């Protein structure tokens, strides 16, 4: 009967998990602690947007706690994996809200899982600040409890296209990943192209694991595209740029926020001078190796000895800074309502982690980040190429 009881115990344990649901004033806040939840992929091909962003958040919380916390309360990060899947997103968010009982959520690594979880977040009214996912549908139509410190796919797509037109591109082409990530950008890009009544001369596809881009490069070259909008990850981008160079084809490459570690991209392409005509959008004001990031390099090293400070860490840190600021402004008597009000009051807040200041404008828009920072690569290091602020 031992194993019979074992299986029974499993179900009973699950049951009891549900029973311990004694409500109190505000979830996730005690006299000396505030629980902040985060969800995103902890494993799998896009773990960077979950695990690494959370590592950044943890480094930030560690710093805040060292400095005495917020109104005497220490910050505690609760991580949940969404495996980058809809059922994972819903389960992770429900767990954070009803089981872990966190005060607020700062996360969202994958567009589809976050979109799937949005109805639950809206229903529960828990404050949610998006740090990585870019799908427009996550933060719009605006709802009082969801803010984002990340750019949206529409903002980025419009900016990419605008840049191409400013550089007097005559023939614009498009190379995209048609997975969930790519799709959340591809559609807004198509809309942006339509707005400008531009028909792309070529619309090619690459996958995240593709090891050769010759076929795509040939097609682009045949159509004579002079600017190529890249909706791909760094690996396919590196492969495509490499194989285009091989063919002697050098258009203007315009990337987006998935490709913002340009020294690394240069290494990935391997051919010297490969990024002469490459530009991308940065969510960060400086490269992780730059002097102004020294403090965070050390903090990440301290907590995660195997890691090096990455762009993804910085996404978590920047977004977390906005949450921390709102927690401070909400005062010692912390409630979700006060926190949301404080989020709404953030104007021109400089984190040093985004190319421009953070301004939330509820109720019209909870899109708190409007700065598109352009980066290029030259003389062996990344350089800022200006900031476009949208209104």
């Amino acid at each position, binding site marked *: 009967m031992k194993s019979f009881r074992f299986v029974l115990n499993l179900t009973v344990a*699950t049951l009891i998990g549900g029973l311990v649901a004694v409500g109190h004033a505000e979830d996730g806040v005690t006299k000396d602690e505030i629980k902040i939840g985060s969800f995103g992929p902890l494993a799998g091909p896009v773990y960077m947007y979950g695990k690494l962003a959370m590592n950044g958040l943890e480094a930030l919380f560690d710093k805040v706690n060292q400095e005495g916390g917020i109104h005497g309360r220490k910050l505690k990060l609760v991580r949940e*994996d969404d495996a980058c899947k809809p059922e994972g997103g819903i389960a992770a968010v429900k767990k954070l809200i009803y089981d872990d009982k966190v005060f607020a959520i700062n996360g969202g690594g994958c567009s589809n899982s976050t979109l799937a979880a949005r*109805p639950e977040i809206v229903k529960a009214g828990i404050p949610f600040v998006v740090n990585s996912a870019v799908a427009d549908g996550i933060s719009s139509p605006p709802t009082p409890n969801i803010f984002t410190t990340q750019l949206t796919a529409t903002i980025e797509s419009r900016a990419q296209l605008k840049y191409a037109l400013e550089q007097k591109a005559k023939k614009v082409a498009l190379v995209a990943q048609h997975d969930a990530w790519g799709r959340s950008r591809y559609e807004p890009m198509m809309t942006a192209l339509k707005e400008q009544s531009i028909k792309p001369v070529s619309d090619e596809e690459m996958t995240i694991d593709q090891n050769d881009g010759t076929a795509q490069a040939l097609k682009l070259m045949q159509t004579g595209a002079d600017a190529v909008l890249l909706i791909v990850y760094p690996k396919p981008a590196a492969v495509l740029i490499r194989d285009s160079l091989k063919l002697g084809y050098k258009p203007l490459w315009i990337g987006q926020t998935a490709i913002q570690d340009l020294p690394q991209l240069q290494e990935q392409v391997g051919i010297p001078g490969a990024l002469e005509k490459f530009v991308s959008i940065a969510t960060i004001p400086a490269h992780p190796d730059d002097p102004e990031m020294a403090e965070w390099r050390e903090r990440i090293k301290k907590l995660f000895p195997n890691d090096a400070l990455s762009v993804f860490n910085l996404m978590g840190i920047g977004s977390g800074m906005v949450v921390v600021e709102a927690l401070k402004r909400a005062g010692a008597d912390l409630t979700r309502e006060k926190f949301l009000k404080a989020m709404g009051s953030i104007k021109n807040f400089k984190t040093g982690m985004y190319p421009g200041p953070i301004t939330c404008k509820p109720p019209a828009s909870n899109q708190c980040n409007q700065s598109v920072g352009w980066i290029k690569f030259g003389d062996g290091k990344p350089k800022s190429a200006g900031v476009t602020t949208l209104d």
Partner: protein
Amino acid sequence: MRAVVSHRALLVVLFAVLAVLPVVANQYTLFVGNLLMLYMILALGLNLLVGFAGQLAFANAAMYGIGAYGAALLQVRLGLSYWLAAPCGAVLAMAIGTLLAFPALRLSGIYLALATLAFAQFTQWVLLHWNSVTFGAGGFPVPQPEFSALGMSPDRGIYYVSWVVTVVLLAFAWRVVRSRVGRAFVAMRDREMAAQALGVGLLRYKAMAFALSGFYAGTAGALYPAVLAYVSPEGFDLFQMVLHKAMIVVGGMGSIAGSVIGASLLVYLLEVLRQFKATQEIVFGALLLAFVLFQPRGLVDFLKRSVPGWSEPLHYASDSESAFDVAVADELVTGSRGGADR
């Protein structure tokens, strides 16, 4: 008869607990409970195909996806009500599943595995690229069916629907394996040639096995949009396939109770694994390995040996294979002579 009671008792207790879950559990636990029942259906269907009929197919997650997309798209694109769209989704998966029986006539083992795997990858590709129908990789929200007439929230309402469907499909699977069809499956798995010689029509029974398993996966799929209110391709990828396979191996190949136990254990473990944050892949891999190593015939085998009175007939090829074959052949011959199910 006391013997038969034991494994049934376990299932009765399990489903009794699941029945009262909505009353006592929070929404997270309710959601996981509902997913669990979907996985039970998936594991039952896969076990009929792999564990009983011996067809090493890798398309279960694709069938699950076809059921889910069928049910969801019929609602969103054609405006059908959920109650009409859901059975259509399940039947669609069954129809496509049946077609897989044709390659299975010529292929077995690792070759059948790869052919069905290729089919699964192709299905993923269609879901990702047929934008005008499937909405592509971005997925789409699906309205949940209403239960306000019963005074229930959609989450709770669909939970009870899943409960009833799971119980019905469990009972049905039970009947199938104890019928002549089930015996033919086992015979086909253990000695295909011998089974054929004894009059088991391979095409007919392979088609039946694939159809049944397609229907089960499709039914789980049809419940999916109602439970999640959202459908996108990554819910039906290769990891799902691995998960379904793991469930039947951990529970016990060729065992109905094993399918349910395996699904319960894996869903439970996956939720517990959330605690391991950074190292959950390692822990998941290690658990999988440990189970296969130390309990290669699944938990039911362990239960059978250690629980007095646990007497579910286990349909794997036993150590004395030939004796088993003779028994099966006997049973078959008797079955066909009698012409009835028992």
